[in-house]
């Protein structure tokens, strides 16, 4: 029938049931290669600043003298550029996205020292 050529699809869809991911109840769909956020193993970092140089959106700032590596999550485009630039392979891109937040800016600083990574989120 030309008038209701959608019929087949509709009944197929009805029969198949919803293809919805019931997201907050079900976990989100992720792939291994999904580009999420940049993570740093700060203990390996030599604060060379290459990542900062190659960041297309200037999200990363590296303060060599005080050994602080800072990323502005509001600027990061998860492009993997820094990961590729890093000579020490201390950066990596995980597959988890950042939670929505109520205020900005959202910067995370990592201080390079003997201690494990200290994460501070400031507003």
């Amino acid at each position, binding site marked *: 029938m*030309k*008038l*209701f*050529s*959608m019929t*087949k*699809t*509709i009944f*197929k*869809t009805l029969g198949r049931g919803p*293809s919805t991911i019931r997201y907050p109840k079900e976990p989100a*769909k992720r*792939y291994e*290669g*999904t*580009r999420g956020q940049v993570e740093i193993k700060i203990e390996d970092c030599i604060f060379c600043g290459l990542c900062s140089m*190659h960041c*297309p*959106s200037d999200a990363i700032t590296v303060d060599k003298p005080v050994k602080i590596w800072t990323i502005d999550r509001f600027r990061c*485009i*998860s*492009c*993997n*550029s820094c990961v*590729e630039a890093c000579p020490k392979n201390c950066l990596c*891109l995980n597959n988890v996205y950042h939670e929505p937040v109520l205020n900005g800016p959202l910067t995370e600083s990592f201080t390079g020292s003997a201690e494990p990574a200290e994460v501070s989120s400031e507003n």
Partner: protein
Amino acid sequence: MSRRIVVPFGPQHPVLPEPIHLDLVLEDEHVIEAIPSIGYVHRGLEKLVEKRDFKDFVYIAERICGICSFIHSVGYCQGIENIMDIEVPKRAQYLRTIWSEYSRLHSHLLWLGLFADSMGFENLFMNSWRIREKILDAMEETTGGRVIQGSCKVGGVRRDISDSKLKDMVKDLDILSSDIEDLCHVFFDDDTVIHRTKGVGVISKEAAYSLGAVGPTARGSGVSTDIRKTGYVAYADLDFSPVVETGGDCYARCAVRARELLQSVDIIKQAVDAVPSGDIDVKVKGNPDGEYFSRVEQPRGECLHYIKANGKKNILRERVRTPTTANIPALVKMLGGCEMADVPVIVLSIDPCIGCAER
């Protein structure tokens, strides 16, 4: 006394996914005059070449538009590579081809959905996007990004796809193509769709050609032009011919895109069969010096990246002429004398990507 109705259409309007505005002058519902105007999403990113070196600019280039993202990066990289005479590995070229066609699939499905929605066919919209999600899944799995793939770089590609994965993808596409066929059948045959699209926004072959229309807009009018035929990336090795319809109306443009879906599936299959093994990138040394007009076929049509460099890290000028820009004159012509209800259908029928057009 005039019987005119003046309606400010857009920039914020539910049928417009992006801001474009039209001043519609109507009489009853006949459009007497419709002047489109853009300018809401202009960012000026071409100017960013002054800040970013030519390798990093690819990230900007692929953010010209989130829908045509991958092919923009192909166009940009290709331009740089040709200036610098970089021989990109064959496998990388094939992968670029595959991803390009995936982008086309995703873009066309997205468009078919929006198009259906513009004429009030919600179910068709939902079903188109349901299928599109499968394409996006494949993209995300292989490139890491759903809409901004970020897997093309100067000198090659950044990620490889394993052969087994390629085979799986083809298998998935086979399943998908039956769904796509069902969908196309509705676009081709359904009476209400025909009622809304046939004879709407007609533009003749001559007009389309002389107005410089590109892509499905031109092909829908019978102009056989498809930049893929110039044989960039791996297209020279693949067998396909441009999809051409002669109606020149929204129906024809829709049919071109619907048929291109199946064509893309076919091209992907061919490419997967022919993909050679080997490296996926080459090391890029030095800086570009020279100029190049790099042309690629986006889902919306021919896209042109003009790159001029003088041997410095930052290139001198990057100019992007996106298909939407080229199609706007045709759109202006199409809108004259249509009905108010046709306006969204016609506007969407050129598949406007304002993000592209304004950069």
